[in-house]
């Protein structure tokens, strides 16, 4: 009797999970179709807004890989965004390489730069690491001014050729490149979330010393995670460079961008796959509304919104969800006992009998 109850309960649970997964897949498929259709239905204004949202989602998810999963606050990841932008800038003004290859080069070079400068920096943690990465971005910015060979015109500026085809406008092309890259970075995040590699990273986040004691190759793991993060930031930078057409050190290594992607990931919830995506959608839309309503107050209002969010949502939107789950889980034993009493009252269970759930 009691065994039957447990089995039934389990089957119901499995059925619920399967239904939940089907709904999820359906939702993702519909969302994807809608996203693909955007340049064809929405005005170019909104398609531009959404391209920015996609770019911020890529950057926030890439940042999440190193900051959320490994716990290394790489605030200055925008350094690799700039490296990617300049890679694509230099390649597309000097050669006839297909665009995909120059984007790949942007990713590879960003990852390599990350390996070179990142391996010594990874020795420090916490605030020191955060400051170090910010210093890195600033050093790259100021350093770019000192290499005149890189640029096509004065003071570090590169003017890029357009990637518009007869079929798609610049705007739509940039949109699809961003969307494609976002799918890849989400795939990377899902992999990190579920794989052995990802568990290693989370172990490093929890306690690096203990993780290495348990055989996690901490240095290789965290550097790999950061290189992947840098590669995606670099690719996003490359697409962005061609999209806006003119890059200079100030807009490529822009710390305001670093603030944006960190805020997005934090508002959504760090260390989760969905968090940065939710954050990008929320901040993107809120930012746009604020901008269109109060264009002069825009940054002031955004600053205040950032302050309020950091106080009101310390674990992000995903934190609200996990907090509710935790509360429910904490109530499980109570619910279990209540259910048992209820069944006992009906005489359905033998007194003292236990259910294996």
């Amino acid at each position: 009797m009691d065994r039957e109850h447990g089995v039934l309960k389990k089957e119901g649970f499995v059925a619920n999970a399967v239904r939940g997964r089907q709904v999820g897949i359906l939702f993702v498929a519909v969302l994807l179709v809608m996203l693909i259709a955007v340049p064809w239905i929405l005005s170019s204004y909104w398609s531009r807004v959404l391209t920015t949202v996609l770019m911020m989602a890529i950057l926030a998810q890439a940042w999440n890989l190193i900051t959320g999963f490994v716990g290394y606050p790489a605030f200055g990841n925008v350094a690799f965004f700039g490296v990617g932008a300049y890679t694509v800038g230099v390649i597309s003004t000097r050669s006839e390489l297909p665009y995909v290859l120059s984007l790949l080069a942007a990713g590879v070079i960003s990852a390599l730069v990350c390996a070179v400068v990142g391996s010594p920096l990874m020795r420090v943690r916490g605030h020191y690491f955060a400051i170090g990465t910010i210093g890195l971005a600033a050093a790259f910015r100021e350093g770019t001014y000192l290499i005149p060979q890189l640029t096509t015109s004065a003071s570090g500026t590169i003017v890029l050729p357009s990637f518009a085809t007869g079929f798609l406008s610049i705007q739509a092309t940039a949109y699809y490149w961003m969307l494609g890259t976002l799918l890849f970075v989400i795939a990377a995040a899902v992999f990190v979330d579920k794989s052995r590699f990802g568990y290693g990273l989370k172990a490093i986040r929890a306690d690096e010393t203990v993780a290495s004691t348990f055989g996690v190759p901490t240095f290789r793991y965290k550097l790999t995670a950061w290189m992947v993060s840098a590669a995606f930031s670099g690719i996003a930078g490359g697409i962005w460079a061609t999209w806006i057409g003119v890059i200079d050190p100030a807009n490529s290594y822009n710390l305001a961008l670093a603030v944006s992607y960190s805020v997005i990931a934090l508002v959504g919830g760090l260390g989760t796959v969905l968090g940065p995506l939710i954050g990008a959608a929320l901040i993107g839309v809120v930012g746009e509304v604020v901008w269109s309503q109060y264009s002069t107050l825009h940054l002031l209002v955004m600053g205040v919104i950032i302050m309020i969010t950091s106080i009101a949502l310390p674990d992000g939107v995903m934190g609200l969800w996990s907090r509710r789950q935790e509360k429910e889980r904490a109530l499980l034993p109570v619910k279990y006992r209540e259910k048992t009493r209820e069944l006992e009252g009906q005489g359905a269970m033998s007194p003292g009998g236990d259910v294996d759930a």
Partner: protein
Amino acid sequence: MTQFLINVLMLGGIYGIVAAGFSLVYGVMNILNVAHGAFVMFGAYVTFSIVSEFGLDPLLTLPIAAGALFLFAFLVQRYVLHILSGASIFMVFIFTFGLDMALQNSAVLIWSPIYRSVPSPYRGNVFAIGENYVPVGSLIVFVSAWLLAGLLFYLLKRTRLGLAIQATALDSESAKLAGVDVRFIYAMTFAIAAALAGAAGSLLAIVVPVYPFMGTLLIGKAFATAVLGGLGSVPGALIAGLLLALGEVSASMLLGAQFAQVVAYVLLVVVLVVRPRGLFGREYFAEVHV
């Protein structure tokens, strides 16, 4: 040569007191205050406003700028930032970023984004030491900055408040047991650091133009200086300020002015890699867990 020395000592003094406040806040509260540069900017604007409205001597506005920032920072810490105590370092960091954005852009609204210079009686005045001419403005800034540094030292080492601040930095739980009102000390530390920043802004306004985003450049320098001296170490910050100024002034003399800006950031990354605790920081400071 005298000009070189005066420049180094003046810049070094400014970097030193800005970074000392920044470092003090980190040491006591474990907060990296990105808005510290905006505090400097507000100090500069207080001086600018008073001097251009009432024609006061810029030096006399220094206590007003420092006092205004003191009050503002005390209230911010006591009633807003305090809510975030115990939150992750990300959140506090992001909060100060938001504060920085809000302050800079309110300055744009109040004073408009154009460069302004304070009508100063010292501008253009020089006096001769032997064969060299020394600008009076730079000399005043340099002397005042080092006087302020001395004042901070006196406060930290010789007063009850200073001892309480040091005790809180060392171990806030034990400080509480010894009867220190830790919440009050947090607010006071934040306010003292902001007052120093405001004073530094007031001094800067005498020698450089004032604009809403002047803090961004300074906060980068403050990061570099504070890390070089050892985060949390006040004497370290003052000495590192001198070293950074020495590096920048030499770089701009030997290599060209555009190299001066790179020095701070390269120095920052190198120090973090080679000696993360800086010149005078204690080792465990680098072991802050996230």
